[in-house]
């Protein structure tokens, strides 16, 4: 059994990653998680300038899920490179910075600065954050913009380029195809769904930002369906996420067509989940006679 996978010609030792925004810059979980067991660590989205994020509160639990409206709070790309990346030098797993800009120029500028470091294994491009409403962030809903942006970033880096898709669109396949046409090495889906909770005591939205992004087991069926559809629209690998808590959940994504998966909200519930999921995937492969992740893709037409 060999659970390694390739994205853009580069190898990930196993298909289990931790999702952007749920694992900070990595160091926060250092004391709880053995990073060498992780296939990839996707960092919190980095923007060109530092951002303090949205108004509080930023989090609320929902049935089998949660809403967040963090608003891409982060230290900005320069401090990310000088302060955060070095902490991960010894992490022993693939580091995949996740980046977002408000304009194409910003995306490109961030990527150029990161290219100066040897630490990133590749990049995940966030074109889909529902918690920031400014212009640039509608990128993810417009195929032409996605293709143009991807092509621009493709010219900057030879490292794997992963475009992260939003489910808040009429046709996610069109966006995925645009990413592929632009030269992406993979797409990851899904980011969060737009949601809202109102406190009936105060009669106000709970989140300072009014709406937030829904994640967790509640959205897993949406994630699996998205991967299933996207996989049938593109030839590049698909990275699946949304509500994965157990190996069984991850295997659903593989069967739907994912080549790798990420765990997001699950890290909050139990930081041991990535390791447990990887162990469970191995057991399943052994039991079912699967030799590679590719073997999962033959069962559903």
């Amino acid at each position: 059994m060999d659970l390694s996978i390739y994205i853009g010609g580069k190898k990930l030792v196993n298909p289990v990653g931790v999702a952007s925004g749920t694992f900070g810059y990595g160091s926060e979980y250092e004391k709880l998680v053995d990073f060498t067991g992780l296939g990839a660590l996707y960092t919190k989205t980095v923007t060109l300038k530092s951002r303090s994020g949205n108004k509080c509160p930023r989090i609320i639990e929902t049935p089998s899920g949660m809403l967040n409206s963090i608003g891409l709070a982060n230290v900005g790309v320069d401090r990310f490179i000088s302060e955060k990346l070095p902490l991960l030098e010894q992490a022993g797993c693939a580091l995949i910075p996740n980046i977002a800009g408000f304009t194409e120029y910003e995306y490109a500028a961030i990527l150029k600065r990161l290219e100066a470091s040897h630490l990133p294994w590749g990049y995940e491009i966030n074109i889909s954050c529902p918690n920031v409403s400014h212009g640039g962030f509608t990128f993810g809903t417009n195929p032409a913009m996605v293709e143009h942006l991807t092509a621009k970033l493709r010219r900057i880096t030879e490292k794997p380029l992963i475009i992260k898709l939003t489910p808040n669109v009429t046709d996610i396949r069109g966006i995925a195809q645009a990413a592929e046409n632009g030269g992406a090495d993979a797409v990851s889906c899904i980011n969060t769904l737009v949601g809202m909770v109102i406190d009936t005591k105060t009669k106000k939205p709970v989140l300072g930002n009014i709406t937030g992004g829904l994640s967790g087991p509640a959205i897993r069926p949406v994630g699996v369906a998205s991967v299933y559809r996207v996989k049938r629209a593109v030839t590049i690998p698909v990275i699946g996420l949304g509500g994965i808590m157990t190996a069984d959940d991850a295997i659903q994504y593989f069967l739907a067509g994912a080549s790798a998966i990420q765990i997001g909200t699950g890290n909050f519930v139990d930081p041991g989940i990535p390791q447990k999921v990887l162990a469970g995937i191995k057991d399943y492969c052994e039991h079912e006679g699967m030799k590679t992740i590719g073997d999962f893709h033959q069962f559903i037409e």
Partner: protein
Amino acid sequence: MKQIQAKVTGNNQIAKDYYKLVFSWEPPPDTGPGDSYPDFPNPQPGQFITIRVSETTVPLLRRPFAFSGYNAETGEASIIYLKRGKGTEILAGKCPGEYIDIIGPLGNYLKKPENKQKPVLVAGGIGLGPLLYFSSMLDQWQIPHLFIFGARTARYVPDMNSLKNVAICTDDGSKGFAGTVADFLNNFEEKELEHTMLYCCGPLPMLKACHGFATEYDLECYVVMEQIMACGVGACMGCTIKLKKPQGYARVCTEGPVFKSRDIAWT
């Protein structure tokens, strides 16, 4: 900070809707002798743990609770919690002998006051736990202090006999002083307040009132803050509160839960 399966050694009601959960980080029986079981760093008052209360997805997120005590010899720690929703309801059903998944100790803590300072601890409702623990530390350091506890009514007041110098306030006057802890504070004479330092934990309006009082008399004032949490370890940026410029937002789970009241952008 560690993640462990802690063994429940006690879980008893101490007042209406209030419970005290005692647990130890004795390894579960299936931990082989060869397996190294993590030592829990000594928790400090103000620090907290997060508990995964259920294996299902409802409730989903871990629930944070402050330490209300710790006995280094027995390795037993406790929390005091209010049964208020789904998670604490499940918690109230845990029996001695069961194991709970906890992560901790988390956050910063209440520091030993300097010489000359006269600590006054002000607790309201679920703010009781961390200040009880702090009070026991002060006793250990032989620092005399006043403990003020506020509750809506007598039924919500647990037994406080372990405290040397305690003032109980109830909104309806059914026990102790009739009025809020802020009303109680306002009865102090200005000169009594010299070198007084406030340590406050409780509902937001109470903390605001304490901050106002501290500002008026120019007292040092520490508050233990709460915010809804997801990760509890500083990774998600979810539990922020607003500080005065230039600090901006601070994570309650990491930069807090203890803040200087004058650093907070009270609204």
